[in-house]
């Protein structure tokens, strides 16, 4: 057992931390919330130059093929400041799908552009019930004429759809080439409606409505009928990185709160000298340390190519509850000031809830753990 990062990973973390601390301030977050695009093009170019988009990919595509933990620590740092960008939906979710499912030509066409940040991809996994329906998609792609499908259905909570060059969906295909869960990459165009959704956490997310959208068969990624297989293969990495982001946010909440109760004075003493406050902080520290271990366990196994599905489920289950509970304690200890827009704590409260609900909450991953236990 080894409970510290390699020197390389620490270095990458320090670079990320310096960069993000300086640029991604509370003021910046508020500016991006008001901004139509929702992220900074300059910073997008800068992180592409830093190589953040290519960490998971081979050098032949312009990636650095660095270890999974390097990506994990970057996500941790991004989580600390809630850095808004299409990195997750483009270079992680979509990039991994293309990497896993795409033919050699598909990969060589799209991955370099994704990794350079020249192209922004997003992936639309949720149906109109808010569920990941890839096993039996409600979204339909029916062959209307030779090599052309008509896509019909709705996708919800699609990140950055408004700026995405291409969108990946998993639809139920029906046609000469075969049937079943199939991945398509769709360009923006006729027969689609992109509707902005205003959510609690305020990120740029959209509804995508396909009304008989024409999609060519050469936009199919991988084999017809295998869409769900590809998605399930990449989900552990995706979820582990989401846990990294949650870990970062949780760290910040604890730091913010402990800092606050050391400063804030009531009853003639720092709030942090009261035992109830100390116990709440101890609980937060426990949430943080336990989350750190269970999340790094999943990531470490992934980085070594070892079986990890149960550990990923355990991590997401644990993180989902721990991060959220920590934000509740954080708010309780901050009192009124934490409830203002002006104070930064609410960003993390909202992020914790959004993260909890993304890719399966604690209950759904506990069910997966139960499956792995054979009970």
């Amino acid at each position: 057992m080894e409970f510290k990062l390699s020197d390389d990973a620490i270095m990458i973390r320090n670079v990320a931390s310096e960069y993000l601390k300086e640029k991604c301030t509370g003021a910046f977050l508020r500016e991006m919330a008001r901004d139509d695009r929702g992220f900074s093009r300059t910073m997008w170019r800068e992180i592409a130059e830093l190589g953040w988009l290519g960490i998971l990919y081979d050098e032949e595509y312009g990636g650095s093929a660095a270890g999974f933990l390097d990506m994990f620590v970057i996500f941790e740092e991004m989580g600390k400041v809630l850095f808004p960008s299409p990195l997750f939906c483009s270079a992680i979710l979509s990039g991994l799908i293309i990497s896993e499912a795409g033919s050699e030509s598909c990969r060589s066409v799209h991955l370099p552009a994704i990794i350079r940040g020249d192209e922004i991809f997003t992936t639309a996994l949720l149906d109109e019930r808010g569920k990941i329906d890839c096993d039996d998609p409600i979204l339909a792609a029916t062959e209307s004429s030779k090599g052309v499908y008509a896509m019909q259905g709705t996708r919800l909570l699609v990140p950055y759809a408004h700026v995405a060059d291409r969108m990946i969906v998993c639809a139920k295909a029906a046609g000469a080439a075969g049937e079943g869960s199939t991945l398509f990459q769709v360009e923006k165009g006729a027969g689609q409606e992109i509707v902005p959704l205003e959510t609690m956490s305020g990120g740029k997310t959209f509804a995508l409505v396909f009304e008989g959208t024409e999609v060519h068969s050469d936009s199919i990624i991988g084999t017809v009928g295998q869409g769900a297989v590809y998605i399930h293969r990449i989900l552990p990495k995706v979820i582990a990185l989401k846990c990294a982001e949650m870990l970062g946010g949780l760290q910040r909440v604890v730091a913010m709160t402990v800092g606050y109760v050391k400063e804030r004075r009531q009853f003639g003493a720092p709030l942090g000298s009261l035992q109830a406050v100390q116990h709440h902080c101890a609980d937060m520290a426990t949430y943080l340390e336990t989350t750190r271990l269970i999340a790094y366990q999943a990531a470490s196994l992934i980085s070594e190519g070892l079986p990890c599905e149960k550990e990923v489920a355990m991590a997401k289950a644990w993180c989902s509850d721990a991060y959220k509970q920590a934000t509740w304690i954080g708010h309780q200890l901050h009192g009124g000031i934490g409830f203002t827009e002006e104070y930064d704590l609410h960003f993390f409260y909202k992020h914790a809830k959004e993260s909890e609900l993304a890719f399966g909450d604690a209950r759904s991953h506990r069910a997966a753990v139960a499956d792995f236990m054979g009970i």
Partner: protein
Amino acid sequence: MRFHFTEEQEAFRREVRDFLREERDAGTFATDVGELVGRPSLEFSRKLAKRGWIGMTWPRQYGGQGRSYVDKMILNEELMKVQAPIGYHFAADRQVGPALMIFGAEWQKEFFLPRIIRAEEHMKFCLLFSEPGAGSDLVAVSTRAEKDGDHYVINGQKVWTSGGHEADYGWMLARTNLDSSVPKHQGCSEFIIDMKTPGITVRPVINMAGEHSFNEVFFDGVRIDRKYLVGKENAGFQQIMAQMDYERAGIERLLQNYPIYERLIGHVRKMDKGGGDQGFYYWVRDQVAQLEIEFNVGRLLCYQTAWIIDQGRKPSSEAALTKAFCTQYEQRLNDLATRILGPLSQIKKGGPWSAFDGLPARGYLWGPSYTLQGGSVEVLKNILAQRGLGLPRR
């Protein structure tokens, strides 16, 4: 970061498991739950001693194996999972030995360390810390050890002394500076007490599980040679703080009821998934999965604490966090087991209708002690907040 063990460590774990399986099959011991560690058995401790499994982490110069705390935790994990009878040497191995190595006089090291390591006769230790007036507030100890020439004379009373009735020696904290102007934490000393010394009375205290595990120990004019002082006079409280970290760092805090957990999983695996009460079944799955995650988290916390010690650092706030977390898991495990097994889980051992041979009934009765013994959860959270997070004391 690495979350698995080396080949050697896995081989070591298998070696321990094989040994325990043989012993259990031979009827040397039976797996039960309840006390923190299994019953004292000189014979069993000797078997471990022969394999170098006592004092594993002690330096070779003291007869130890110089192995890592992670290795020791692997050994302890396997021993605790089956509740092997290690009670004879456990306290001495865990904290008496390490304390003597740091603070002990030469004669104490030469006398006790080899005897502990070899599990010789008359080497069982108990801990004499708590008093009626000093539980969580350990610094309030009032049992006094007053110097009288070449002796100390001890008067006072200890309580919650686990295994005191079977101990050969006691490891004691007593007040040696009675000057009330001296801060309380600067007036205590540590002593080794021969439990056969005249003037010591051990009286059983029956716990709510109906068992005799701990005791009151009375000291009435007990004269001990001053050579039994450990370390510096009046530095006892400081000396003890490091020992507390070791006391709290163990995986025993997570595994006291492991036999119940193991059987519970087996029981749930055999549950009727098709018919019956579907709502109950899915609730059980959800609850047991949560326990499994907590168990995994607790296990990582324990191994990380061992690793921290191996790095040469003191794990004070980490050990406190770990113990608080693990002991609360233990309580939830027992509670959940009774709720899953239902009313029959109340039936104690000995009848044909008890669930799991009465293990849950016994485990649940011991439950309140888990979050109290060795530092209550509240004290541990204070430590975590003050030492770990730097929050100010009142």
